[in-house]
């Protein structure tokens, strides 16, 4: 695949309550681009999370996705390891290509 750059895709599923905290941290380490997916539904260690909480943004699950180089991905995984230890949520880091 020509013109494609090897990158890392970081996906973090967290409770809506912590969205502002995590996006600020990303901006603090100069990651300017990310995408937010709201109203996620599913089951995890903490139990079932309904997706459509019409009147409650805090307790709904959201996902933040960002694409970064390998060094930044490492910073995120090391720096946020503790956050994911303490809170329900999950982080995936996968290889990807970016145009």
């Amino acid at each position, binding site marked *: 695949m020509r013109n494609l750059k090897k990158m890392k895709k970081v996906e973090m599923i967290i409770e809506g309550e*912590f969205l*502002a*905290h995590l996006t*600020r*941290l990303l901006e*603090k*380490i100069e990651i300017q681009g990310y995408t937010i997916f709201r109203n996620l539904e599913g089951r995890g260690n*903490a*139990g*079932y*999370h*309904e997706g*459509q*909480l*019409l*009147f*409650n*943004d*805090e*307790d709904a699950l959201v996902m933040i996705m960002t694409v970064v180089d390998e060094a930044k991905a*490492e*910073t*995120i995984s*090391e*720096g*946020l390891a*503790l*956050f994911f230890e*303490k*809170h329900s949520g999950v982080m995936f880091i996968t290889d990807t290509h970016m145009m």
Partner: protein
Amino acid sequence: MIVKEKDILFIDSLVESAVEHIPNFWPMKSFIHHNPLHGFENMHFEEAVNKAHTLFHAKKSLTREQYQRFYQEGKIEDMYLREELENFGTKCGHTHPLLENLFIQLMTKSRECHHFDEITNVSPLIPQIAKNLSPESLNDYADFNANLVKHLAKEKTIYDVVDMLFATNVGEALDDIMSQIAMRFLGEGQAIWNMPKREKGMFLSWKEIVMQDKVFFNENETLCRLLRETALAEDIIFMVLKELKIPRSFWEEYFTLELTKLHGWSGFLKYRSKSSSEYQKKYPAFMEEFLAIRLYYSYMLLKKQENSLGFFPSMKELGSYIMNNKEEAFLRAEYNSGKLLLSYFQSVENFLHETQKTDAKEIYDQYIYDKKIHDCEVLAEYLYKVLSLVLKEEQIQTLQAQELNAINAALQDFEDEEGFIWLKAMEKTSMMQLMSDYVQSKKTQEQVNSSDAQLFFCIDTRSERIRRNIEAAGAYETYGMAGFFGIPFKSIDVSNRCESDLCPAILTPKHIVYSFHEKEAINSKGLMKIVKKVLNELKYNVLTPYVTVEAIGALFAFDFFGKSLVPKAYMPLRKKIFDPKVEEELRIERYTEKEATESITAIQNQIIKFVIEEKFNIKPSSLDDEILNEIREIALSKEDIVQEDQDGVAIDSVTKLGAKYNLLQIEEQRLIELLRKEYKVSAGHMRIQKAKMAKVGFSFKEQLYYVQSALKTVGLKSFCDIVVLSAHASQSENNPYESALDCGACGGSSSLINAKVLAYMANKQNIREELHKHGIHIPEQTYFIAALHNTTSDVLTLFDAHAPHSHHEALKKLKADLELAGMLTAAERMATLPLSNTRSKQGAFSLAKRNTMDWSQPRPEWGLSKNHSFFIGKRENSKNMNLAGRTFLHSYDYTGDKKGAILSVILSGPLVVGEWINMEHFFSTLDNSAFGSESKVYHNVVGKLGVISGNMSDLRTGLPSQTVNLENEPYHEPLRLITMIEAPFETHKNVIDKIHKISELVYNEWIKTIFIDEKETAFFLYEGNTQTWEKLEFKTFTQGENRA
């Protein structure tokens, strides 16, 4: 910068975790009731209360005497008290036959009946009891030092221990410094002397001050150099912790200890750092900055103790001192805490003040020996008194040592758990009462054929009384739903230049609604009048260059500049322009692209006129549209004006403005740059402003959605000619807590605008046509009217100016009935307020009205005090229950909600708001000092955002004493929210399991849950002791009757 990026993430994540247990505190203008232990909701309620006891030094329950009062008033059934005592015995494994009777005696007999105070230390049995007590029953002082070191940096900060051992005052000095910094930086317009350069953020602004401070900018060269060079709060946190020698594994707990010291300010910062408030945008502040400043000062204050202590008290050195000077450290702690035996006072004092310490061991050993004897005697005396309640002297004498120690152990467990035993018994009493009333209410239900009007009210407990009285006054149906009527938006009040989020705090507003007074009109001409006036008033203010189109336009945060910068000039102007008596107009329809462009263009031209006048002293009246448009277009383009010719000589103007007034191109260019940079007249900002305007109002589809949702949520299927949407608000003078009495579902504001928005949408013909296709048939003659229930006066006002003529007669009757209902409601409420001994309904009504204007009235109404339950179900089933204004009522018909989708909306939104309100009252009553704000009498408003006690304290959170107490005794009855859900248990119980937050609240027992299953004719109660759902047949339970 000494920390790496990953350390920044690590430290900030630690800070985030550390403050999780500190509740948010919202500014007073939008008081949000919340659970002070919200951060503990992932734990069981009882565990959380115990944790809070440790962390906030808060009480775990009311006192025995306070519960005894409820018991004597019949609010706690004897049977349930015994049942809970039995459960306690089983849980703790205490089986001695004496215990049940002993505990019941202790709980139910008042202190006077115990004759405790009359029993003096004369019985010969006391020494015998003391002799039989095992060493495990008593404190082992040998562990003191090891425990202190173990708790260092986990349960006590370094300076807590230094203050304890050396009678220093580091903690208090640190709190004072931090309170002052918080007030000066976070204040919203009250401080005379704010922090410098606040726009740079809290940490950098503070740096400006501290680097000039000779007292606190010395002592440690490396730290001071780092502070001079860094812009990162995390650098300071890292360095101070290194200097204090606190290992990484302790950091999170240490942060928690530091930030809970002033948990009011920390809670406010926690809210503010994540909010989109204008102050946060303008003067950003974050928790790690607050922590860095606190840690810095704590280090400097400790450093100043180094000389007198003889060592720098880092964690390591302090730990060594405690372990290497075991006897001295212990005696210091005893002496400074006031626990020292009186007979040792002089000798220990002499010892501690000796410069050359004599051997401490001798005095220590003797002291420990005597202290243990003393403790043993005190305990024996207490046991003797307690045992005397149920045993005669000779019986006490026959107790074996083993029995005595078992009783003592059980007694200690009992005292630890007693509050929960009382609480659970009191809740059971109320639950059985509510279930009985429900069954009785269903039995006495009357068939209603037709109604004159339908009235929607907020779920707020205060609606219950007026709903009941309206239903009794005529053929009226009432419904309950969250007071924001399901429409989450931000209201920007152009008249008052302020904005409010009119939805629950757990929800982010999805739309913007502008409100205008008629005089202003909703067109750009009206707006221009406002912009022009305010610009003129700002002319002489030093901060004028910061004025932006957002700030001065009617678009965003007008108030911020108008009120904050030129209040004296601005406020009279505001009063002159806006007549508060004029009913507001709302912009509910979405702006078209054309309208948005026109509005922004008009504001920009007005700004350009202002700037030209300021800069060149040119009269605005001489500037025509052609000149203004040209300047605006250049500012919006990316082009610059050439300022010099090839030889570097300034050349003549190129614009029409320049030509008319002989300006040089360099002057024209400066004007353009000023407009772009300072006044945000640029293409980029125009795009942002347009994007913001696209959020104003609602599209057709959105309007349809909101009307449909509101009607479906309450299960309304057929409509009367008149449908009233009643908002609510309180009214009082000189009351910083006024917003705590407003609508909780509207973020502590009046819900009137929400009611008006829904009424507008529901009255639209095209909306009704579309609803018809979705199976909701609103007849043509049905008219929706917004109304306002003043909860202080119980006056209910209809906003019916545009109602069709055909409805006038019916409205006349409705108004008369509403007045009667208001009067009856006021009479009910006034009877509960002190000093309102009026007997007539009219007298009560006029007294209630007086409370809205009496500036000296500390308790204009009881508000939501005494709230205890939340009913989700059909009104006809709860209609005959007298819930005495204690129940949140949400309408719900499960027959139209087979999959539980509507129930999940009610549980995840309104119920959570109800739980916050309930827990706020619960904990403010339990410990008004730790969780409430104590008496209003000593409050001072600070920074226009909250109150402090006296002239310096932490920001006071929670409810004042006047809201929950009456003559220093609880008026509010603290019970967890009894939540009754009218739905089939089998099919709808899974709604709880599917919403993580709700399952936490139910299974961790933050609420007490009851399903009312009409099909099974049974109740299903979640029983925390057995962690099962208990089934009870529908029946009435008379007092004292065993429910089984």
